[in-house]
């Protein structure tokens, strides 16, 4: 996986598709780039633009402004698409910003692999997005076709085997209920907006206390007992922060596989905890 990014460039989806969407879609105005968001993505995937030069927060601000001007289902679609891409870019940017240096040790290789993995994920996402247009076209085209589907002539009906009825009255009512219950309408959960604030620092303290015992601990074990998503997120961010302080090391054998964390700090004092999470406003 640790091949040079340039060799992957031809795999990037053609810019043409980005240009098609361009007139109607979201445009970005930045110091380093001015144009449609989709083109920005294309350029980044082709590595013609350095991800580290893009201020994602500025892109996000512009996007929110753009969304306010939209209406209806388009807004939801565009918003979710933006989120998917932005999250991937964010992952990728984090990987890009982390210290790299020369290719001297295994950790650096692992880091590059992580970057490539994210890159592959972005490509894959775009591939499915592009091919979904084919699905949409085919579904519409085929819905205009007419298959012969007429009522069976009476003279053949008598030959259908006798019906074996096995549904009880109560089961029948349950079926009606099932069939008539409105399908759940997808909603964006708002609960998180009111979630109590969770301190990354406190969660880091918890993580540190577990790790300092010396044995490697899996991420799964680190979040055991966390009953809120926010706690899980905070512990994860705490780990990233600890990594930045070179206090922990990661091991993950396969994508999406078990993540194992080791305590690697040589000079750790709890004072370090005080500044932890400062970037997140706490």
């Amino acid at each position, binding site marked *: 996986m640790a091949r040079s990014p340039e060799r992957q460039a031809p795999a990037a989806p053609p810019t043409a598709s980005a240009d098609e969407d361009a007139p109607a879609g979201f445009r970005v105005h930045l110091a380093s780039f001015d144009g449609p968001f989709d083109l920005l993505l294309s350029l980044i995937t082709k590595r013609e633009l350095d991800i580290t030069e893009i201020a994602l927060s500025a892109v996000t601000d512009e996007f929110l402004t753009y969304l306010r001007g939209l209406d209806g289902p388009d807004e939801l679609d565009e918003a979710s698409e933006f989120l998917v891409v932005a999250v991937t870019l964010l992952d990728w940017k984090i990987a890009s910003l982390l210290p790299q240096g020369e290719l001297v040790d295994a950790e650096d290789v692992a880091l590059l692999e992580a970057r490539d993995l994210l890159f592959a994920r972005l490509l894959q996402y775009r591939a499915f997005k592009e091919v979904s247009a084919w699905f949409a076209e085919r579904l519409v085209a085929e819905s205009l076709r007419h298959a012969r589907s007429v*009522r069976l002539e009476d003279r*053949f009906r008598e030959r*259908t*085997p006798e*019906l074996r009825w096995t*549904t009880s009255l109560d089961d*029948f*009512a349950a079926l009606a209920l099932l*069939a*008539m219950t409105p399908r759940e309408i997808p909603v964006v959960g708002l609960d998180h907006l009111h979630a109590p604030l969770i301190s990354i620092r406190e969660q880091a303290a918890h993580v540190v206390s577990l790790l300092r015992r010396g044995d490697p601990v899996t991420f799964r074990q680190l979040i055991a007992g966390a009953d809120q998503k926010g706690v899980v997120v905070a512990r994860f961010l705490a780990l990233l922060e600890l990594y930045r302080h070179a206090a922990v090391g990661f091991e993950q054998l396969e994508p999406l596989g078990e993540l194992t964390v080791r305590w690697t700090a040589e000079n750790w004092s709890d004072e370090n905890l005080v500044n932890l999470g400062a970037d997140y406003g706490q």
Partner: protein
Amino acid sequence: MGSDAETTTEPTEADVEGAPRGIPDHIDVARALEAILMVADEPQSVVGLAAGVGRPVEDVRAALAELVADYDGAAGGPRRGFELREVGGGWRIYVRGELDEVVREFVHTQSPAKLSQAALETLAVIAYKQPISRGAIASIRAVNVDSVVRTLLGRGLITEAFTDSETGAIHYATTELLLTQLGINSLDELPKISPLLDDGSRGFDDVR
């Protein structure tokens, strides 16, 4: 699908302008007619067909006669496994009589003895919301229910209750056979399901 198609179709611009409607000149009437007859569920009147293809009645009559002969093998082609017959004032494609036995055998081996889950659910919807149109069923089930409704009709579990005179939509109701299968005497004995729906059922107010 019905012979009353015209009543539910919005007038096209051509109608409004009084311009002739129908198939483009380069399409042979017989080809357009066989296309229509392949998907029409009900026998089609000559007048209805003429309106559909936008050609004079005599032309349509001649084309129908041509098709009958054609399918009978009189035009040089094979004698088809199907035939075009006029029954009760309308034209419809039927299985040719001498192949009835083949089709009977096929229908027998292909028809499941049990209803599918989709058929049962649709039947349940009809039972609780009858009389109900196919469109209304489809919008509740969020799927195309045409073939399922046909199966239920074929099984004698539902019947066509009436046709809405304005929309032309056929409304379906359940039959005595369903009551017998469920072991009840009347629809009043169906378990009440409204209390369960109260929580999330807005928009389904008329469920009994």
